[in-house]
């Protein structure tokens, strides 16, 4: 029975001498997904992509794309794939249009068809006013957009975007993210890696968190948050909070940790639907006056830090 997955990786192992870069990595990506690969520096995200695309050797594992075994010479499969690498990889001597046309020509031979595709890619990334410019005359954000245009111009079915928004201003980042969602809406399956949690959270339908080559967690946004049992964070402005009140608050079943600095009370809760009202009930019962109250739902960042730890990485 043919596998419906666009990407199917089984037990992939990759070593750089003594360092295990990928430790039995397995993943399946269904058609139409925006799949997020999340992990700290050196976690194996780019290595995983390069192994999947057969650029890197690996010690063990099986890789299938579009239901077929991927090998270095499967140019028929490569023609269905787009890649936007982490480093900007374009010709400095060619103009925006020439660069896009060159990379598009690696996949599309028909010049007429290619011209239309190049025009669409230019419009897609908003480089219409810069088609004659060479990369050195473009800002960092525009170069990133060119990098993306070179990867998507041939309208691939599957596209790998490896940290495409690094060193990009917020406006360009929003434009890039919107573009990725538009691609996905047109049917492209997207594999997206990033350091920015909010990006992954906002566009990915499924997320895999990698660290030291191992899969720490995988699932939808809500599934990951549920996985670590983290609930909302409550912040309350209040002065002169008695010890008795703090003791009562700590005693609440949903309170995981509490911190009070004399002016602001910060409470981390576990999952639950009445956390805020339970806390406010205690304060009112103790006749404690308070000012503004904030309640934040858990973020992917919380999940990430919970899973990968808060220690500094290289």
């Amino acid at each position, binding site marked *: 029975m043919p596998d419906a997955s666009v990407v199917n990786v089984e037990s992939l192992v990759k070593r*750089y001498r003594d360092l295990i870069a990928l430790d039995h990595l397995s993943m399946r990506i269904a058609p139409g997904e925006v799949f997020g690969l999340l992990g700290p520096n050196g976690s194996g995200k780019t290595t995983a992509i*390069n192994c999947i*695309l*057969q*650029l*890197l*050797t690996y010690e063990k594992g099986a890789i299938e794309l579009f239901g077929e075994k991927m090998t*270095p*010479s499967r*140019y028929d499969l*490569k*023609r269905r*794939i787009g*890649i936007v*690498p982490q*480093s*900007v*990889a*374009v*010709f400095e*001597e*060619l103009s925006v249009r*020439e660069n896009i*046309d*060159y*990379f598009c*020509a*690696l*996949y599309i031979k028909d010049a007429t068809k290619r011209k239309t595709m190049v025009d669409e890619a230019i419009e897609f990334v908003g480089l219409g006013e810069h088609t004659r410019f060479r990369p050195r005359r473009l800002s960092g954000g525009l170069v990133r957009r060119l990098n993306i245009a*070179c990867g998507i111009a*041939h309208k691939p079915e599957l596209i790998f975007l490896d940290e495409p928004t690094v060193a990009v201003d917020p406006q360009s980042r929003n434009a890039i993210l919107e573009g990725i969602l538009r691609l996905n809406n047109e049917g492209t399956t997207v594999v997206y890696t990033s350091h920015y949690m909010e990006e992954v959270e906002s566009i990915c339908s499924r997320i895999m968190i990698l660290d030291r080559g191992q899969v720490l967690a995988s699932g939808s946004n809500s599934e990951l948050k549920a996985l670590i049992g983290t609930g909302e964070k409550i912040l309350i402005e209040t002065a002169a909070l008695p010890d008795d009140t703090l003791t009562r608050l700590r005693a609440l079943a949903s309170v995981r940790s509490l911190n009070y600095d004399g002016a602001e009370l910060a409470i981390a809760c576990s999952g639950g639907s009445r956390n805020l009202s339970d806390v406010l009930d205690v304060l009112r019962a103790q006749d404690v006056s308070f000012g503004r109250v904030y309640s934040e739902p858990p973020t992917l960042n919380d999940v990430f830090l919970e899973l990968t730890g808060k220690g500094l990485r290289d």
Partner: protein
Amino acid sequence: MTNTFTYTLLALVRERDALIWALAFPLVLATLFFAMFSGIDSSYRLKTVPIVVVDDAHYRDAAAFVSLMRVLSEPAETGAPTSTGAAAHDGAHGPSTDAGPLLDVRLVASTEEADALLKSRDVVGYYVVDASGTPRLVVSAVGLDITEEVTRTILKTVIDNYLRSAATAETVMAKTAQGIGAAPAWPAGAAGPAGPAAPAGPAGAAAPAAPAAAAAATIAELSETLAHPLQFTKELRVTANDASGSVRYYYALLGFAALMTAQVGMLTVVRTQANLSPLGARRALGGTNRSVTLVAGLLASWLLSFVCILIAYCYIRFALGVSFGGRDPACVLGLAAATLMATSFGTLIGAIPRMTLGAKGGILIGITCLASLFAGLYGTPAQRLSDWLSREAPAFQQINPVQQVSTLFYTLYYYDGYEAFFSTVGALLVFSAACLALAAVLMGRQRYASV
């Protein structure tokens, strides 16, 4: 493939560094060479020597000497045609075969007038014939510079040769006269080479008529021979063109320029290989077979290199007027082979893994400069070193690409046939094939342990 070829070529044409090494640098060096060496060949050329001759009665009586002055005042016979049948001189930089007269004879009426010209340094010497019919050279003893020294030597050589010939003639005539038992006699109205005509004495009249006639004929023949010494000398050319002191520099420069274009091939490979640059990695992931990408890139590199060196060649050949033996089509073929060698060599250096682009560029420049030293590019000591290596270590020079390219043009300039040229072209092609084979081994992998 066409697209990859076109865009690779376009990118290379716009790559300023590559063009500086491949085109601008050789043009600048050629111009410098021209400024430095343009006087070399002309300095080797024999210039007409001005000489004053005292035209008095003694001189007019010395018929042989008068004849000599006349012969040496005429333009010399031009060199023999080459075995290819083509005119050797193609109007370019290099020694001329069209020699002018050796002497520019100016006749003056008296010794005083000649002395005055000598003192004013209008001439470096003058000939005067004394009463015995022997010519003498009078020169100034002081204030001679190197040019005047050379001129004086020429004038002295002329008169020494004349006197030696005259002495020889006298000896021959004396022995001939003894042999036939008659006194020697110069033809009526002629003067012997050593001086005034020998008197036709009574001894001659007393001799039998037949031997006397034979002696007269022999002496007349001898006289004619001594008056026209070149009639038994034939100039044969052993090379297709005259030796030139400067062409060697330009040929070595073309070898240097050819190897400099290896930068283009190196850059192309670095941009094609996944383990050498991010651009290479991206291209390796594309939907076009990587060997197609590589071949298209190398063809573009070779074409650009060829055009660059062709421009350098045209500049040296036509603007600077350096001779290539008039074999332009073969030169163009040689340039094509030379740039193929350079592109292949650049490909090999470019394919070395785990080395930065700057380091590879440095290696190429270093090798090019060193190979150029052994090819004699940097002056006379370098040329001596090159010659010594060619004698003592021919195998080393055989693998020196700059030397091979230099030899390529050398064979065209000096050799009549094309055997040596095609042999050198073959050596360059073998070198190219070896470089490409090694590069293929280095680039053969499709996947990498790391990128």
